């Protein structure tokens, strides 16, 4: 996928930086709650970006990224809770811890492919809540009750609310991570990663150290999603085992598939999307239960489930991929981009 | 009298690659026809095309019915039996089960047992191994099983893809002899694809020669056998 220089992305970025500053003019639009919501969208985008690195760009299916998110979140939480570490210092440590965990999982995963890898990661995701409640870890993890934290303080006496500061903090982190990912993917390493996805045997025989690339990609992917988890620990100021169950992985999957498999920009779209749907579904559910008095517990997962299935038929390339396809059919693309686009389309639509 | 099987202007594709360009032939009821040609000429593809196992264009008519586009299993239910390359026996099923599965689609259940007995009379070796797992049979026995199974479909037309492949010469002779018997006694017409041109021309009444997806020669096998080009290219003298 062509990296950073996309006009709409620059525009989005500018808007993202400037709009919250318009708070004095539009206090209702740029409320604390809205900023918090958008912060969670940014965090979601980072998480989906992590998953996309592994599944979209390197072809290794993971249903278990909720595990890495949990590791990141709990690492940050424990560091802040037990060691009184400042919130920003937890990010690099969480990244390293998750990289190691991801790399270690990537080692046995070398032998697995397709359905089997999906199964192994599925098993991982299913067991995470129980692992987090393990008695011997209770002192660290707070067991079922979890750990209560505090939101990041606004530094240097800046005239911002906590939610505004959190928003910019997350935004800057995401921009840095996005930029880093774009650079990795545009480099020789990135091409090797994608070569492994598309033509594994050819890559292998061409001398690419496929094992190294696959395990390292697993590590980097886990690190990204882990950073998202660490950010969420600060943002929500709370971690508990049951929030890191398999359904979180489903949300990541939605982000991946809706936004675009193998698309960085798509990861952002996907993250925003699943947070939006999740929140709307909650609002709808409350409406149905309280206002309409109907005994139905609606949940976003019905929408997610239907979307997952429908998209596989209609838009296997996701929203961003679909838009690109449309744009491409309207103007001719130059050489390497067109080839990449064609490979991507072939990859996801078989 | 309309031919049993009429093929006209047949094209066949494996994905994007075209394999048959213009194949046409006819099979009369009762005879044995053979398709000859070098490796890659399109013989196996032709058999597969008749059963809609590859993408086809053109005309294929069996007993007047158009076969193009019909699902394979429906074509088989019209009483065309295909003995594929490599026999296609169900290796984890027993000999008995391999035969019974062919009887699965038949309506006349009562006749099935009688047919089983007749099949065993053609291939007594199979009767000895009736409960044995098909995968443990020898190559020759598996070929017999494949033909026996095809017989259990009570076919009007049998398609055979390289039945001699990988078999010892004595076994091949025995199998070909049985094929002639089946053709005469059961009134099963046959379309035989063979690499072993000499054997095929001995058995068949009619022959077609394929080259890179086209029919280049046809006629009664006695004439084709003596054609100079055929002798040089396929018979080695």
């Amino acid at each position, binding site marked *: 996928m062509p990296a950073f220089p996309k006009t709409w992305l620059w525009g989005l970025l500018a808007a993202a930086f400037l709009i919250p500053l318009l708070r004095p003019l539009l206090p209702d639009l740029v409320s604390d709650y809205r900023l918090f919501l958008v912060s969670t969208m940014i965090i979601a985008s980072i998480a989906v970006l992590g998953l996309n690195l592994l599944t979209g760009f390197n072809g290794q299916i993971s249903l278990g990224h909720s595990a890495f998110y949990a590791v990141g979140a709990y690492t940050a939480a424990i560091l802040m809770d037990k060691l009184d570490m400042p919130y920003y210092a937890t990010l690099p440590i969480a990244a390293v811890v998750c990289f190691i965990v991801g790399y270690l999982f990537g080692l046995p995963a070398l032998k697995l492919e397709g359905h089997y890898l999906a199964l192994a990661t599925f098993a991982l995701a299913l067991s995470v809540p129980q692992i987090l409640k393990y008695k011997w870890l209770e002192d660290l993890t707070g067991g079922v009750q979890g750990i209560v934290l505090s939101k990041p303080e606004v530094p240097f006496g800046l005239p911002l609310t906590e939610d505004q500061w959190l928003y910019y903090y997350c935004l800057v982190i995401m921009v840095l991570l996005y930029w880093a990912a774009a650079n990795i993917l545009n480099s020789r390493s990135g091409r090797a990663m994608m070569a492994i996805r598309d033509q594994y045997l050819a890559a292998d025989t061409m001398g690419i150290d496929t094992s190294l690339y696959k395990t390292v990609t697993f590590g980097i992917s886990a690190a990204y999603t882990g950073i998202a988890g660490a950010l969420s620990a600060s943002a929500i100021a709370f971690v508990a085992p049951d929030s890191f169950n398999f359904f979180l992985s489903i949300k990541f999957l939605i982000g991946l598939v809706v936004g675009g498999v193998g698309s960085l920009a798509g990861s952002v779209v996907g993250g925003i999307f699943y947070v939006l749907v999740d929140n709307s579904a909650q609002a709808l559910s409350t409406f149905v239960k309280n206002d309409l008095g109907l005994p139905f517990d609606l949940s976003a*997962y019905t929408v997610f489930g239907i979307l997952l299935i429908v998209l596989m038929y209609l838009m296997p390339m996701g929203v961003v991929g679909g838009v690109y396809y449309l744009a491409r059919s309207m103007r001719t693309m130059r050489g390497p981009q067109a080839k990449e686009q064609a490979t991507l389309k072939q990859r996801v639509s078989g | 009298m309309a031919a049993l099987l009429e093929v006209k202007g047949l094209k066949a594709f494996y994905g994007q690659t075209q394999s048959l360009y213009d194949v046409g032939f006819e099979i009369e009821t009762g005879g044995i026809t053979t398709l000859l040609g070098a490796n890659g000429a399109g013989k196996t593809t032709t058999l597969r095309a008749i059963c809609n196992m590859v993408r086809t264009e053109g005309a294929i008519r069996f007993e007047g019915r158009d076969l193009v586009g019909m699902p394979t299993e429906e074509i088989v239910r019209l009483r065309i039996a295909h003995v594929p390359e490599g026999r296609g026996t169900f290796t984890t*099923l027993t000999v008995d089960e391999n035969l019974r599965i062919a009887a699965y689609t038949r309506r006349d259940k009562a006749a099935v047992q009688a047919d089983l007995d007749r099949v065993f009379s053609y291939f007594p070796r199979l009767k000895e191994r009736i409960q044995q797992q098909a995968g443990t049979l020898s190559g020759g026995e598996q070929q017999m099983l494949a033909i026996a199974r095809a017989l259990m479909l009570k076919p009007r037309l049998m398609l055979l893809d390289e039945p001699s492949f990988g078999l010892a010469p004595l076994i091949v002779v025995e199998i070909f002899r049985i094929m002639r018997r089946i053709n005469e006694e059961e009134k099963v017409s046959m379309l035989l694809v063979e690499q072993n041109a000499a054997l095929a021309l001995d058995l068949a009444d009619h022959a077609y020669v394929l080259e890179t997806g086209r029919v280049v020669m046809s006629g009664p096998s006695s004439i084709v056998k003596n054609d100079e080009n055929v002798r040089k290219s396929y018979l080695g003298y």
Partner: protein
Amino acid sequence: MEQFLQQIASGLANGAIYACVALALVMIYVSTDHINFAQGEMAMFSTYISWQLMSWGLSFWVAFIAAVAFSFMLGVLIERVILRPLHSAPVLSIVVVFIGLLAICNSVAGAIWSYLIKEYPSPFPKSSFGIAGVIGPHQLGVVIVTLIVLGLLFAFFRYTPLGLAMRAAAQNPQMARLVGVRVDWMLALGWGLAAAVGAVAGIMVAHIVYLDPNMMGGILLYAFAGALVGGIGNPGGAVLGGFIVGVLENMVAFAGNQIEKATGVYIIGNGEKLTVALIIVIFVLTVKPAGLFGRVVVKRV
């Protein structure tokens, strides 16, 4: 000693459940090469159907049969409508679709019947059933029902023409077509049967774990472990694997409990069963993917 026997007995009862779900997984895997991640949720949904039927007045066994039949039809429908068009799609698409099914089954069940945990009755009479001190009435009933269902399935596949056709279609679809078998319908029937077997498991286990939309999550993981241990391509192996995992997890928890009683040190207990299953899954997948009885599929280059 009595406690030990009780643990084995309850392990067998749990194992019976895992064996059913494992069998359902393997049936689908053998015929379509797909792993049905939604198996647990489908079973749970059918169990809710049976609960609903009972709350409308039907007796247990009538509701049981109706729910299993419904499950069969649901399985056939899912295969024909949702999966058939995707049969040549890339693996990721198929995995995504299964996860989608999982999400739909779970959330719709929660939507219709809420996430409140419900009690589920046991059809096995408390007084006359069971061997006192060793195995409870429901547990014994579960094992018996499971064995009956497995026996019926085995007989079906071994001795009936339709069962033979399904076996042939699973083993060599193209050759099966060449003997006139309508392979597409065989796959759909296979799905229906797998769904039905899953439903049996769900209904049997509901009394033990209580009815709630998330009840099958852990069970599915154990079933995967069982199927892998037995060999994911081998139905008989899957059943055996399910029983093995059931007994094994109980033994591990039991051993942990005994150690804790003796030394006061808690190493492992009931709360770590899923972790044990995870370890089994990873271990088998990486070390011996063929399991005990399966055959390793060599990838053709």
